[in-house]
């Protein structure tokens, strides 16, 4: 097992490095010139030859003319910075400078990540609280009227893109019923404290949370249902029933516990994605989250920020994959992942 984990982590790092090289090369295809951008402010105060001199110095100091692999190594923190001679890259915790926010990337992201995690925790719990019982009921009444209608609804749920769900929810709850605001995170200008602040937050975040929950119902319900149907088809269920156990005990104690095994791995994988945030819902509601920051970075050609966010997304999905794979073995000792 230990050997398998080490091997997987090694693979993960390998994949991450390849992805990072690819992404770095890709972003370097964008025609941009940070040196010129930095001199733009004082351009008018300089004579042309002086400007040209400074520009060349700056390019040299920033190492813009070095080979791309060297620049990549600097960015990752494998090679020392040209100017300071120190290692200062991703590995050392320096993610670059955001032109759009005029701040270091490491100052931009944390507050946004906090918001995204806050929203997604609610979404995850709400979705699980709905889908697990629903999936079990569907499996127990397999092919019944209730099951069939839920199956149909789940198909609708995962067929409709989330922005259409957003439009319908906004139309219904924000525009027609006026229960919730159309967008934003808190009442502008009102610096509430304590309980008021919390209620204000709830007021603003309910609609996005509802939409994200609704969008994730379809897939999860189906997954729970399938796992439960498989479990209910096992021989030990027949034995349990033959022993004369009550149906409730059979379902919740014998079947559900075994159906939980495949479900829990998905849930673990799902928990990892709470850091990612939904680009669409966050931009639609102008929520200060990871998804919106990524969208803003791309929209405003703030590529250092976009690159850092991108690598973060990538790391999250790889770690999620790893934990999911490992959890198979953790929750079910019979499964030997390292085989």
């Amino acid at each position, binding site marked *: 097992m230990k050997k398998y984990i080490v091997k997987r982590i090694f693979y993960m790092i390998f994949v*991450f490095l*390849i*992805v990072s090289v690819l992404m770095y090369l*890709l972003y370097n295809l964008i025609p941009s010139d940070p040196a010129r951008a930095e001199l733009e402010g004082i351009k008018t105060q300089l004579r042309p030859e002086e400007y040209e001199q400074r520009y060349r110095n700056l390019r040299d100091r920033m190492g813009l003319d070095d080979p791309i692999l060297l620049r990549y190594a600097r960015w990752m923190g494998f090679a020392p910075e040209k100017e300071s001679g120190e290692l200062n890259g991703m590995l050392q915790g320096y993610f670059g400078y955001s032109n759009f926010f005029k701040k270091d990337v490491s100052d931009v992201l944390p507050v946004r990540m906090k918001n995204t995690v806050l929203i997604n925790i609610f979404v995850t719990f709400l979705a699980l609280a709905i889908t697990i019982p629903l999936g079990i009921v569907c499996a127990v009444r397999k092919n019944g009227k209730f099951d069939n209608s839920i199956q149909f609804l789940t198909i*609708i749920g995962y067929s409709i893109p989330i922005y259409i769900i957003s*439009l319908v929810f906004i139309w219904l709850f924000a525009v027609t019923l006026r229960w919730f605001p159309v967008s934003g995170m808190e009442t502008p200008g009102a610096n509430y404290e304590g309980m008021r602040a919390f209620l204000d937050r709830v007021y603003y975040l309910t609609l996005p949370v509802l939409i994200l929950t609704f969008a994730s119902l379809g897939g999860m319900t189906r997954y729970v249902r399938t796992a439960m149907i498989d479990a209910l088809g096992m021989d030990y269920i027949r034995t349990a029933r033959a022993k004369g156990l009550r149906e409730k005990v059979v379902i919740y104690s014998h079947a559900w516990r075994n159906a939980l095994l495949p479900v829990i791995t998905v849930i673990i994988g799902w928990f990892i994605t709470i850091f990612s945030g939904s680009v669409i819902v966050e931009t639609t509601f102008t929520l200060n989250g990871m998804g919106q920051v990524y969208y803003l970075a791309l929209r405003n050609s703030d590529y250092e920020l976009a690159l850092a966010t991108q690598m973060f997304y990538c790391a999250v999905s790889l770690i999620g994959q790893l934990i999911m794979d490992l959890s198979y073995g953790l929750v079910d000792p019979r499964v030997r992942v390292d085989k």
Partner: protein
Amino acid sequence: MEKKNKNKSSLFSRLFGNRKKEMSFLEEEQVQSPGRIVLRNFLHNPLGMTGLIVFLVIFAFVMIAPRYIKLDLSYQDNTQVNVPPTMSLMELPKELQGHVADIAPGTTFSVGVSDTGKVYTWGYTRITDTIDLSQIPEEVQQARIVKTATGYDHVVALDENGGIYVWGNERLGQARLPQEIKSAMRKGENLKIKQIEAGYQFSAAVTEDGQLFLWGNSNMADVNLRREYEGQVEKVALTTYSYIALLKDGSVVYGGLQKNAFSDVPQEVASGIVDISSTGSTVAAIDKEGKITVWGNVSYGEDEIPAMDSKPVKIYGGLNHYTALLENGDVVTWGSDVHNVSSIPASVHQEKITQIFSGFYQNYALTESGEIETWGLKGYLLGTDDLGRDLLNRIANGGRVTMTVGAIAVVISLAIGIILGGIAGYFGGWIDMFVMRVAEVVGGLPFLPFAMILSAIIGTRISVEQRMYLIMVVLGVLSWPATCRLIRAQILSQREQEFVVAAKAMGVKEGAIVFRHILPNVLSMILVTATLDFATCMLTESTLSYLGFGITPPTPTWGNMLTSANNSVVIQQFWWRWVFPAAIFGICTICINLVGDALRSAFDPKSAER
């Protein structure tokens, strides 16, 4: 006959009926080929069949309709912005029929005056949230109106005492009447105004003794009259921002001070002119012999005057077309044929027409018997968007783009997935290892962000069409790992089966074993994956386009049509702009997924268990 009926009912009951039919033992245990079982399972699934039929209908619509409703990427029309779904823009109110004294067709609305002096409006009369042209002011309702004229967003009406009323958008001086008219109205004098006209935010009035009054937004329009023409004006014709005047001596002049396309008046119209008219950007004059001269910014063939079998006596202008009334009561039109403004119905040619009211995209012809014949813009079945484009047109063409992109992306993704998955699964060893690592890298690229990045980097430098291909390729190239993994797993299990061993023993080449012996056995899996992937690719494309990183306007897709709908004003007031694209797209993806689901359970041997 009887047989036919039986078939019919069996198809119906197959689709929707109760299929728990009593069967004899032999029937029930009859051996059937797997293909027939699958087909029967699928045909017996009501949801799947409904999904298939609805999808085929939508598919046929988006593939056939664009042949008839052509997409013009550069088309936009600021007079037709945000018109709700309606087909009754030209339907006269009942009270007006048979009693028409004057009709002024507007952009999406029309104003009519009855012979009793009452004013009626019809069509889409809302200009903004607060301005609605159907709210006719009290004083107008009380006055006895004889003439009316419509501009882009305001209405002018003239009563029998020479009083002039303006309503609608008044914020730019549309209602700021000239001093003479105002004081005459105050004193109760009649200025004997015989003609009123309205253009873009400005209006004009001509009196019997040759006075011309112009008022309105002078920043946009040339509302001046040269002194030498004062007191000589017989008639005016207003273009969007300018006007020409017919003088009492039969010559046509440009009365304003600006230099523009109309100010170079051609020689032909220096004398003997009997009528003038104008479209949005051209003017026309007709002389005693019936010769028609057109000048200005001709862009829709307004100067291509057709041959006429009789002498034209009167000429009327819409926004981009002209209509001429002939001496024998017939009607001829030419110019643009957008919204069928130049397609005269046959019934008009049979009648003797006495008068025509033409404006923007509508034409009303008054017959001898007092009936009204209409042709032109009836309305929009699904409304228009914020640039005045017909939504039906954009939904049909957008659907074609969305489906094409989805289909090609699926084909690319399947091709890569099947080939690599087949190779990895069958050969195993280091090839398997290598392919799976590549799949892991590609799968490790977070999908949406990566596609966004690609189109952000490359997308700006290429044309609209290339961009479409780029999106297809990006979608296809990024979504193959799932298919690859699936195929590989399937092949791993099939590889160990006896028939493969047998094929090997027979000396069949390895490539043939993979693609001819094993692949057909995983075909069911591929079919299901392809169906579900098709929906996913369409969803991803539309999501990208919705965010502005996929296919960008003016090329329509079902995704980017919803981009502009993302604010509460549109959601509430212009509901047709998001409800229709969202509905058809939602229904389409639901149907595809239903079909995929039905296919999966049809292929699944477990579902046949009783």
